[in-house]
């Protein structure tokens, strides 16, 4: 069986006939070629596949493409606007919130969710909010600094 799906990704609509078992992350990466979103653990623990579905963070390795039919998905490629990088991308860059970069797209999408729910988080809340995302090289310290920095610039708060 193949099922037609029509999903808006980063503002552009894609229509494809897919197998029902196709995961959203495989649609994004393998069918549509948007390889910013990563597959890490593939068991909804590491968070490297995190995207926004209708603005809300989800792990795209644990979502079928057919479940996102008719919905709007944002991946890391969709965060930057015409006027440059998203504040989270700027902050991860400026605060050295990455080394190898593999977890970064998911880490930034999860940080986006964190700031959506809590625009001015404490360090503890940042760590708690990112507990579903694993980094295996920076050691998290600079990731927390990056999110704190982005929250400050988004709210115009003092650093």
């Amino acid at each position, binding site marked *: *069986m193949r*099922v037609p799906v029509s999903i808006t990704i980063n503002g552009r609509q894609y229509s494809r006939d897919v*197998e*029902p*078992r196709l*995961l959203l992350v495989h649609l994004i990466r393998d069918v549509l070629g948007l390889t910013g979103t990563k597959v890490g653990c*593939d*068991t*909804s*623990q590491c*968070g490297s596949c*995190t995207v926004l579905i209708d603005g*809300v*963070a*989800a*792990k795209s390795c*644990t*979502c*079928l493409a*057919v*479940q996102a*039919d008719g919905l709007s998905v944002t991946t890391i490629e969709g965060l930057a606007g015409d006027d440059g990088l998203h504040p989270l991308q700027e902050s991860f860059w400026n605060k050295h919130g990455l080394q190898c970069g593999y977890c970064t797209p998911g880490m930034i999408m*999860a940080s986006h*969710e*964190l700031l959506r*729910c809590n625009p001015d988080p404490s360090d503890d809340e940042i760590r708690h*909010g990112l*507990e*579903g*995302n694993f980094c295996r090289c920076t050691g998290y310290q600079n990731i927390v600094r990056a999110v704190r920095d982005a929250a400050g610039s988004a709210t115009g708060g003092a650093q």
Partner: protein
Amino acid sequence: MFAPQFDYYRASSVAEAAALLAEHPEAKVLAGGHSLIPLLKLRLAAPSALVDIGRIDSLRSILEESGTIEIGALTTHAELASSELLRSRATALAEAAGMIGDPAVRNRGTIGGNVAHADPASDLPAVLACLGAEFRVTGGDGDRSVRASDFFEGLMSTAIGEGEILTSIGVPTVDSACGSAYAKFAHPASRYAVIGAAAALVVDEDGSCTCASVTLGGLVPAPVRATAVEEALVGTRLDAAAIASASGLTGEALDTDDVLGDVYASAEYRRSVAQVWVQRALSSAAARCG
């Protein structure tokens, strides 16, 4: 990982979902997918078809009606955790929902999918059993309600029959003299419960315990009541000494070969430390009474 092939049908109503299940008896129901999709990817399940109920918006609600909080099966863990009604009237449930997985998992996982899956390491079964929840199922031979003690039959096994769909869960409301809490020993990577303890306490106007409900999950195939702990609490003033003494009886509920162990935490270890989590749940619940 790739799931085995299956057909896919999206239902727009409960009646349509029931009809699809009747037409495809080998099908499984898909809600948020956070229990079922991992099973499919690990090839522990290979249904011929999925019936997706995820778009039936009438199943996503938290409503109080005549002494019961009725929670639609598609209500997400994030919605449970942030519900003011649940936080004030069924505190343990909101608390446990907020401890499930991580924020992205809580955005997609649903209460109905969680309990229908009945993973022993899940949080909600123990809490719902503790709070005396009833499970509404439809399809098959019509509508029926199943008590928590009858609903969870064992390891990943529930009373939901062939062709039936879980539509909502009713949790009895309590007054301010009752406090409930959930304490969890979470696996550090998966956040699943190694041990979960749910407690609900009722006190009279003098602060004396009149009713106690204590349920354990995580380390047993299906939630178990710690009746010895409950009986020891009734009549006490729920002070630290009474709670510590009663918690020490936790092992009586776990005096079976059913206690689960794995490479992370053996059955012996879980059995011996379970009382710590019972004590923490009781302390929180007692502090919330009145």
